[in-house]
């Protein structure tokens, strides 16, 4: 295996709240090889977005970050702002969840593409415009010349997300972080966008982190999947392996809770009881313990480490794996 492009070591993120500090990310380790795809799955509040913001160094001002984020040989945590700025775009890019809010409503599509090209590649306006048209065409936007002059609100949701992807891709980044890129979109559009991402990722040999709450999204489109719960990665395995043999009860319950198309109507769903723990009050044991049907006293008193005791290539954090 080649040297990892990204290696995240023991990341913790603490957010101040009136109820005390909230540990949003709790000791996460990840590695990502160049050109490969990692899916991060989890419910809202599990820390997946904070993790991605930590990697992007876009955490809220008052958040406290611990650990190391090695990206292409540099530690992003200790990088100077100017170095970091140069890194963003040509090396590291992001696509956010809602293109309506991630594109500036008062600037034209053209401005928003061109400024990135100019900032990093030093293109003159004409060249940058031409390149912008190419990029828009590449992400499947019809009549790209006209779009350059339009504002985000004049485009449909899917088109906006395509624009956002075009901007992210504009400087040929080595790593693209797609943070719930399709959550705000309709199902029919979601499939198109996911395909677009997959296609571009392969064509550019770009590494990608795909963050989502939907196991269905990562199933066919990632090399590896990390499942997060309460700020921690609770299971991590190559995608096919994860879906064929889940070890963590949470992962399994999550999959089971999705309504199935092939079950008849009015079938009661196997719901996970309760709700995620309050992360301002960390539990001593396994954080899934209160909702876990297999939990026992051991789970309550000791936190299971993320490990691969079976040496089968899949990591999980559970005392009672399935």
């Amino acid at each position: 295996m080649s040297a990892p492009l990204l290696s995240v070591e023991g990341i913790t993120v603490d957010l101040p709240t009136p109820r005390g500090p909230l540990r949003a990310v709790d000791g996460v380790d990840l590695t990502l090889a160049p050109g490969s795809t990692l899916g991060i799955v989890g419910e809202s509040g599990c820390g997946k977005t904070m993790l991605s913001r930590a990697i992007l160094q876009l955490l809220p001002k008052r958040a406290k970050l611990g650990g190391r984020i090695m990206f292409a040989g540099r530690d992003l945590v200790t990088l100077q702002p100017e170095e970091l700025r140069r890194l963003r775009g040509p090396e590291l890019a992001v696509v956010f969840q809602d293109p309506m809010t991630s594109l500036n409503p008062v600037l034209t599509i053209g401005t928003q593409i061109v400024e990135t090209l100019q900032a990093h590649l030093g293109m003159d306006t004409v060249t940058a415009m031409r390149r912008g048209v190419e990029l828009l065409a590449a992400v499947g936007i019809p009549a790209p010349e006209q779009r350059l002059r339009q504002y985000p609100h004049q485009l449909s949701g899917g088109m906006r997300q395509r624009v956002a992807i075009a901007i992210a891709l504009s400087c040929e980044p080595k790593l693209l972080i797609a943070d719930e890129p399709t959550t705000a979109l309709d199902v029919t559009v979601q499939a198109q966008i996911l395909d677009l991402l997959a296609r571009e990722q392969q064509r550019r040999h770009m590494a990608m982190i795909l963050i989502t709450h939907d196991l269905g999204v990562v199933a066919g489109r990632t090399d590896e999947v990390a499942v997060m719960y309460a700020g921690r990665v609770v299971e991590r395995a190559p995608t096919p392996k994860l879906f064929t043999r889940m070890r963590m009860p949470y992962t399994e319950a999550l999959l089971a809770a999705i309504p199935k198309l092939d079950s008849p109507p009015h079938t009661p769903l196997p719901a996970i009881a309760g709700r995620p723990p309050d992360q301002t009050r960390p539990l001593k044991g396994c954080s899934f313990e209160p909702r876990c049907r297999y939990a026992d006293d051991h789970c309550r008193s000791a936190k299971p480490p993320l490990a691969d005791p079976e040496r089968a290539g899949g990591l999980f954090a559970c005392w009672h794996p399935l």
Partner: protein
Amino acid sequence: MAKFLGRRLLYLLPVLLAVTLLTFLVASLLPGDLATTILGDQATPEKVAALRAEMGLDLPIWQRYGIWLWGVLHGDLGRSFRTGETVWAAVTARLPVSLELMVIGVVLSLVIAIPLAILCAVKSGTALDRFFTGLAFGKLSLPNYMVAILLIYLFAVELNWLPATGWVPFAEDPLANLRSFILPAVTLAFAEWPVLMRVLRSDMIATLQEDYIAMAKAKGLRPARILLVHALKPSSLTLVTVAGINIGRLIGGALIVETIFALPGIGRLLVGAIYARDFIILQGVVLFVAAGFVVVNFIVDMLYAVLDPRIRHGRA
């Protein structure tokens, strides 16, 4: 666009009508009238009645308003009974002074407010932010007339850098004209900046939390570009509104500043007209001021459209 303009115009007329009518009504509440003022110590009831009849003051208020309106519609704003000046001449002589004061003052206040607001928004919650927001409060409790006097003592009397009262017409000497506007404009700007800064600061703080700012950072743009291009424009809608209202208000003259710095502006004309019960001038000034206010409102609406394309494309 033409439709938009037309709609605005249709809105303008009733507002102007209402304002001028209100002025008529309110002015009629004032004790004393031009007739008693002109006649003064020989104001016998008969003489007053005769003079009132001569000036048309004895007509019912509706009729007087009608006559005035008819004149205005025919381009005749009337003529002061007291000075013989036409309203047009009186207002056009004063308006440029008030406008220049207002423009310089507002520009100056924006020049102070915008960088401070950006600074405070970026550093929100820090000691720096608290210092400037506190300063803005401090200004609130320091009235204009005190600021004016302090400025005069400092810059005109002690340092002798700037004139205290020496307004010079622009046509006569543009440079001296500007110099004479510095102190009054600074006084005005001093009054306006805290409000503008507060408004922009809080909007800016909200904007800086938007996804598209995170996106702009993720794109690796320079901080200056992020602040000035990506954040400032969408944050400035309330600023524009408040500045618009303030400008609208200042078209009516900044009376205290005009008085202290002896600027021949609309504010003093207005007060003079009220004190002399010179209602023709009063009506004329109010008409201009109200029209100015509506026009500024209109410009603010246009600015909205410039600032926010969503409004421009009719999907507000």
